């Protein structure tokens, strides 16, 4: 009876496993949004991008039989939505926050429309790597079945951190975000930099969506995303636009989101819905603690409309 032997350890173990499993979409969306926001624009539409990514990944995976093609399709869909956002935002006097809200509704609606025939069929899922082969405790084995996308995301965070600091592209994005005049004076088109940054951001958010439909929970339905996209956007703010902090924050969020199901698995049914809302409470609490009306946040790109 391996079950009985670990007893209450089930909960922290499930939270740990959940942190890895649930955090992946948060991680990809927040890294993508980090790039976009560093260039001086906010894309609230990533919630819609996430859902569109989930739908297109599932559809392409079902039609082609290859989940990795699905991931690619999700990324491309996300990049297209990002291009749409950037294109509308580059018109004069258009508010990027409002466009984000519009694309959130548009992306979700379009995904539900196109995804109607996909609710029934089962698409091939993404494989997982079994890091728990050495253990014979089933819960530990389950927690250590880690998806490859998660590893990509974990590797991407330090790469982005490095890229922002040292590469030419990182510097250009940061210049556009800190002072569009400076970027223009250097002879670069701010709109073009932001277009690319938003497209890359959308690409990553789309991949985050593909994780939802192709690995965990691992099916397509209309209740798949309940605000993960928007939570991830908020997460970037208190991660101070730092990719490494985005990684830690995503893990914390994943753990918080896994708390409800974990408690339910050991028989604590009270407040199931409240525990499920833990990531939202956590986001609000952290925003309340870290924001201040007196100063702009340290590390905030100066051109960002949300902090002005």
């Amino acid at each position: 009876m391996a079950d009985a032997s670990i007893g209450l350890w089930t909960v922290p173990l499930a939270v740990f496993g959940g942190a890895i499993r649930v955090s992946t979409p948060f991680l990809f969306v927040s890294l993508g949004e980090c790039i976009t926001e560093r260039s001086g624009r906010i894309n609230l539409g990533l919630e819609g991008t996430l859902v569109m990514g989930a739908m297109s990944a599932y559809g392409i995976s079902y039609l082609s039989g290859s989940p990795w093609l699905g991931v690619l399709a999700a990324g491309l869909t996300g990049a297209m939505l990002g291009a749409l956002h950037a294109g509308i935002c580059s018109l004069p006097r258009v508010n990027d926050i409002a466009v984000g809200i519009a694309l959130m509704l548009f992306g979700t609606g379009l995904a539900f429309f196109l995804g109607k025939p996909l609710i029934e069929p089962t698409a091939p899922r993404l494989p997982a790597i079994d890091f728990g082969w050495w253990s014979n405790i089933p819960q530990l084995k389950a927690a250590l079945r880690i998806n490859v996308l998660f590893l990509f995301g974990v590797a991407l965070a330090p790469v982005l951190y490095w890229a922002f600091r040292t590469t030419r592209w990182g510097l250009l994005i940061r210049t556009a975000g800190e002072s569009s005049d400076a970027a223009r004076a250097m002879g670069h088109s701010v709109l073009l930099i932001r277009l690319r940054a938003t497209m890359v951001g959308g690409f990553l958010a789309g991949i985050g969506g593909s994780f939802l439909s192709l690995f965990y929970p691992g099916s397509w339905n209309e209740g798949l995303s309940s605000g993960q996209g928007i939570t991830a956007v908020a997460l970037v703010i208190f991660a101070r636009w730092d990719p490494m902090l985005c990684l830690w924050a995503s893990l914390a969020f994943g753990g918080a989101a896994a708390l409800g199901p974990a408690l339910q698995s050991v028989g604590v049914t009270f407040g199931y819905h409240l525990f499920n809302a833990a990531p939202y409470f956590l986001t609000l609490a952290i925003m309340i603690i870290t924001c201040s009306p007196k100063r702009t946040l340290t590390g905030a790109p100066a051109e960002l409309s949300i902090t002005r």
Partner: protein
Amino acid sequence: MTSEVADSVEAAAAAPTGFLGRHGATIEYILIPGAALAGALVVFGIFVALFGKNPLDLYFYMYQGAFGTWFSWQNTLTRAAPLILTALCTALPAQLGMVIIGGEGALLIGALSATSMALAMPSAPPLAVQFAMAAAGMTGGGLWIMLSGGLRQYRGVNETISSLLLVYVALAILNHLVEGPMRDPASLNKPSTREIGAANMIGSIPGTEVHWGLVFGVIAAIACYVLIYHTTFGFAARVAGGNIRAAKIVGLSVGNLILTICFLAGSCAGLAGMVEVAAVQGRTNANLAAGYGFTGILVAFLARQNPLAVIPVAILIGGIGASGGLLQRRLGLPDASVLVLQGIIFVFVLASDALYGRIGFLKGKP
């Protein structure tokens, strides 16, 4: 001094004359959103044509389902009622330059508060119950959005994100209560609270199937319009929305303005929740999260945040929602097609913001 007067007289004489000159701005406010709407309909027609449906059929059935018959008119108006109220939840804070998108949360909290109030006074006369429900719904929804406003004012938390996060918190609270402490043991498949009782329902406007919520909505929209454009308070709010530093210099209490406006905005959405309970559902359950709060955002933006313009726009968007059923039955389009169309309209309306002041013939110049 005299030269200034002379200048102003000259300026008045040089001011644009003729119909277009005087009403150019007003025409612009109607023409540009109208063109955006038409553009969105064309794009949606092309989108539907890609799925092998005839766009002309689409427009015909949309018209039929929204405004074609008395039955569809009533359906449209019933849907417009909560949309007017939730749109005000976005339009009022917009006067202060705030973007609040959490109307759905205030609607849910308003519905919960109103239901709790009705269940707490089982033997009171219906009219008293209805008043108490409206008061409770408005207070609950108002405090909910005021929370976002307070966080913005005192902690600098972005109100757009906090109000949206609070939607999910409100949904969690609602699910927790209707599946736990407030659950009616008789509701097996769909966990719900107990019913508020048929006597306490607010009923329909005589001669129609449209409930009184529409009247509440219209009154609220007119009241908001008067408040914003014809009172000192509304003027102060618009000053603060235009230039917050100027508002502080002339001694306006921006914090109080934010909290009051947010409370009023939330109470509109809370009233929508009360109306949905007292006129449609009769109880609180997850059905209430039908997306009226999110569609209200679209209505507010399409109405350019003008409380009075919210009324016709809500009827128009309500009509699109009402036609969804007919599109599903006659053309075999999924129910989400309404969401797609709303999304396209939203995108077009925002993109059309770039056109203001750029249409040559409206400036009164050759």
